[in-house]
């Protein structure tokens, strides 16, 4: 049993070492013109973290991302529950949500910029539209696939609609909803950074785009590395909780 639990950890370690080795090899092949070695990147990131400017950009990104994620989760849950509880609405809207999910949402960004203006609210809106749909889709399917006996039991106890949602539907749907939030987390982060890359004056995405025009390879590598490590480690943690929820601990 213990060996089984350690195996994923060992695999992750092998994977990380492997990826670092590939990176180092690529550096040796490409050279200083366009790449930095893992060690140089981490060293530069350390230096970057001692500057004030970096923390201003990071705070800006995190602020936009946090608000966007909150909006995505709340609206996604509301839409998911509303559609999940009404058969016809769910059947009709699910394919439409799936279609919306697969379009290149980045092309909608100019429209959002025109509506919200250049600034924090546009970034938040753009991050949120990336996250709402997965949260809504997972919630919708979670509510639909709840075992009817639970709903019947709720009815026997004469629960009101809000009570039913709070006491029966929500707890039963939590594992699936959590999966939706996990996917929503990643997509909202991607949306926020993408928004910053196209039009912004602050944030990590802006820092990245600015680094291209300055041809600052150190900065590009360091910020990309930071974003990847942040996204990957949060997702790994969420995935672990997700698996525990699905298998009942």
């Amino acid at each position, binding site marked *: 049993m213990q060996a089984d639990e350690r195996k994923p950890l060992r695999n992750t370690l092998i994977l990380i070492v492997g990826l670092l080795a590939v990176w180092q090899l690529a550096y040796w092949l490409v050279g200083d013109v*366009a790449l930095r070695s893992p060690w140089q990147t981490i060293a530069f990131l350390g230096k970057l973290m001692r500057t004030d400017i970096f923390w201003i950009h990071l705070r800006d990104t995190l602020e936009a991302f946090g608000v966007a994620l909150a909006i995505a989760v709340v609206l996604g849950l509301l839409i998911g529950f509303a559609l999940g509880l009404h058969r016809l609405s769910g*059947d009709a809207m699910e394919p439409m949500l799936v279609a919306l999910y*697969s379009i290149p949402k980045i*092309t909608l960004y100019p429209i959002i*910029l*025109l509506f919200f203006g250049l600034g924090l609210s546009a970034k938040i809106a753009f991050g949120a539209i990336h996250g709402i749909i997965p949260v809504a889709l997972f919630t919708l399917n979670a509510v639909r696939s709840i075992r009817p006996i639970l709903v019947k039991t709720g009815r026997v106890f004469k629960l009101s609609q809000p009570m039913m949602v709070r006491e029966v539907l929500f707890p039963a749907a939590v594992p699936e909803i959590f999966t939706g939030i996990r*996917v929503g987390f990643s997509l909202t982060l991607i949306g926020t*950074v993408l928004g910053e890359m196209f039009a912004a004056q602050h944030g990590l*995405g802006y820092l990245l*785009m600015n680094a291209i025009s300055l041809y600052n390879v150190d900065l590009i590598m360091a910020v990309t590395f930071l974003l990847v490590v942040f996204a990957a480690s949060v997702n790994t943690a969420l995935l672990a909780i997700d698996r525990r929820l699905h298998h009942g601990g």
Partner: protein
Amino acid sequence: MTRVRLYQLAVVLAFVLALEGLCAVGVIDKITMPAPHIILRDFFRLLLEGRYFDEIGKSLANVLVAFALAFVVGAVTGTILHGYRTARDILDPLFATYYAIPVFAFYPLFIVMFGLGDGPQLLIGFLLGVVAVIVTTLNGLDRVPLVLKKTARVNRLGPLQTALRVTLPFCAPYLLTAAKLALAYAFIGVIGSEFIMARAGMGYEIGYAYTNFDNATMYPLILLILLLSILVNGLLSHWEKTLLARRGLA
């Protein structure tokens, strides 16, 4: 028409009419968004004039190349990987975390490495799609019934022939799902990259029109991209459903 279709039609109509109303009343001003009927008029004008056909062709060609690369490399990698349990176990955490990583963040790096041409765009489209294809292929191969594998062995098929004649045909519905995902990701990758930084293409034109307040070009082009991706996605989904239905899976 079924009730579901009517419902969907009503939702779309209500949305368009609401926009039309908001534009007419002036809640949404002209600089922000032209009324839907004007967007539609500009859309047909743009198509009739054929002004952006080169750009559209270039973007679609890149989408197709990125899609083909992601699909072929992904399916082959998935098929090979299926035979190596340990390699698969080691790569599993990567697959599980892959879609949490903002692949677009690599775009600046690719521009520095390969220059501002088609290369970085294709690479982004490819990278977004390839892992979805690998995972879906593995998923399909896991479901091949033992009896089929035994039949292949009885007929003394080699590994390549087994894959081409037995296991991959069995996986056809999964490969179709993989193709659908790869195409959607190729679209997102190529158009998105063009939008962030490029010298040509539909995404670039939208960004250009935005900076010049040229709503008569921007909205029709956005509409075109949305219609194209919804149409292609719908067609593949439909095909996927018929294929699954024929096998009694849906």
